[in-house]
């Protein structure tokens, strides 16, 4: 009796597996496009995937995109690992932390990168107009708002404060959502805030001053975020992964070459108004991964105690 139950169970599982296998193959054989869900954050950084979807770069390769927006790496990465999302967009520091915890992730292509220009980057640290903080070194001993503690914001800020000759160990970081930061800076509730576009443009229009450019100063070609998938999908459906990566690269290049298109598409998935979209600084969207900059973030994560051991950059990157 027991045996028959077990056999039946094994049979059912095998049938399920077979069903999964055949549906995957069927899709790539042209029985209709592969339905793919991508987990991302609805911010400026992901404009290329929205543009690429609109331009049909994914449809051309038999991929039907569903873009699922969430809170950030902390929700995207579990989604990718559990298979709820086939692909995800997450910042490099989150990915490095996930890698040290043994999550089976693999970077496919670059997400977005710093402009490398310390005077015109898409993220930076701002202070109220009348603040006595003049430069990055002045942030030592102050309260700085970041959107997420122990992540890419505070680790790069610590780095630029050190570079400027300050002491990063007595910066007090507090967590605030980006949309709450302009008010917090204006009212002086925090001494400084790390903001990314469009909030950098919004706060500077309100009179805030930028005192540090934490991405560009950390590495002139810093890759900030990347598109990832799970190792499981790479093994089970390498063809889909390949087609997604190609479509993604075409989208990145298109966005890089057509900044006005990128500014236009922002209005379709964010609440950014036209004026701000016109003025804000776009990130760079290269397709090649700057390994050196990822290693730099890995070293910083290790140095600042974000990870228990040294991240394996090679294992994470393609």
């Amino acid at each position: 009796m027991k045996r028959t139950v077990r056999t039946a169970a094994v049979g059912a599982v095998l049938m399920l597996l077979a069903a999964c296998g055949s549906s995957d193959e069927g899709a790539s054989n042209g029985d209709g496009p592969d339905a793919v869900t991508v987990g991302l954050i609805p911010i400026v950084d992901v404009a290329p995937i929205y543009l690429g979807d609109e331009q049909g770069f994914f449809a051309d390769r038999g991929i039907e995109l569903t873009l699922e927006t969430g809170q950030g790496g902390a929700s995207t990465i579990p989604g990718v690992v559990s298979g709820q999302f086939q692909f995800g967009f997450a910042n490099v520091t989150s990915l490095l932390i996930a890698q040290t915890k043994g999550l089976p992730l693999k970077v496919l292509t670059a997400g977005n990168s710093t402009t490398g220009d310390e005077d015109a980057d898409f993220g930076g640290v701002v202070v109220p107009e009348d603040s006595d903080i003049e430069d990055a070194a002045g942030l030592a001993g102050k309260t700085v708002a970041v959107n997420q503690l122990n992540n890419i914001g505070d680790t790069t800020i610590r780095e630029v404060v050190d570079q400027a000759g300050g002491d990063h160990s007595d910066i007090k970081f507090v967590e605030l959502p980006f949309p709450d930061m302009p008010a917090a800076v204006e009212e002086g509730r925090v001494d400084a805030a790390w903001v990314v576009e469009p909030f950098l443009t919004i706060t500077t229009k309100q009179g805030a001053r930028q005192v540090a450019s934490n991405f560009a100063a950390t590495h002139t070609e810093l890759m900030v975020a990347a598109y990832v998938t799970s190792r499981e999908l790479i093994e089970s459906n390498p063809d889909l992964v390949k087609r997604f990566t190609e479509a993604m690269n075409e989208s990145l290049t298109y966005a890089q070459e057509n900044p006005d298109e990128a500014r236009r598409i922002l209005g379709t998935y964010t609440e950014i108004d036209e004026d701000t979209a016109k003025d804000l600084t776009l990130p760079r969207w290269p397709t090649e991964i700057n390994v050196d900059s990822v290693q730099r973030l890995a070293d910083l994560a290790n140095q600042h105690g974000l990870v228990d051991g040294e991240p394996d950059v090679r294992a994470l990157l393609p």
Partner: protein
Amino acid sequence: MTSTIGVARRSESSLLIAWAKRALLVLGLPIVLIVAWWLATANSTSFYWPPLRTILEVFGATWFEGRMGTDVAPSLVRLGAGYALALVLGVTVGVAVGSSPTLRAVVEPVLEFFRAIPPPVLVPVLILFAGIGDGMKVLVIVSGAIWPILLNTVEGVRSIDEVLRDTARCYRFRRRARLLHLVLRGASPQIVTGARQALSIAIILMVISEMFAATNGLGFSIIQFQRSFAIPQMFSGIILLGLIGVALSLLFRVVESRAMAWHRGLHHTQRGGN
């Protein structure tokens, strides 16, 4: 002689049995659940469902090597401050509103309005008023925990026996004596009920308040663990949170049984017991 010893023995052993029965009743389900959890996850390789053994292994290192002072203590201090403030405010306002029908008619709709707003959505607003420090977090706790206390106090004060009120008047109780011995004492069973509900709400809001603009705390740590993919540590935090909840409710029961002993006695005699 022998028979008395026998009786004593019997009552002793029956006492022991009753005690064991009670212990089994109290601890039975938790033990079953723990064993079920242990067995269900024993061979788990899922990243997000680590074995209970792994969780318990990291428990000590996670919480007893520094975090008790840096995270758990600040959380409990904020909880204590918020809860105490909610008690004082809730009882004060509740007594005032309960004692005056006019005041009650005026403020009741407003109270119902504020009571219906979930405190978590107030957090961004409270940040504007109270900044991002401990004050904001305490206010979040107060803003949720005050309602059961306040509304129960109003009900308690309102439902004090008219005969008792008249008696106090006849004996010319002074204001202070009337407040202490008639109003507060009369309403105390309901105040205690409200306070018990408020305690669990306060614990929930302690965690929620640490999701915004926090730099330390128990809820803050749990979220940090979740975000940095330290899943066993995250589960250990959730377990600790549960244990703190149990400990606080036990503490509440001890305080309640001391403070309300007179009430239980009264209840007993009124029902004809002895």
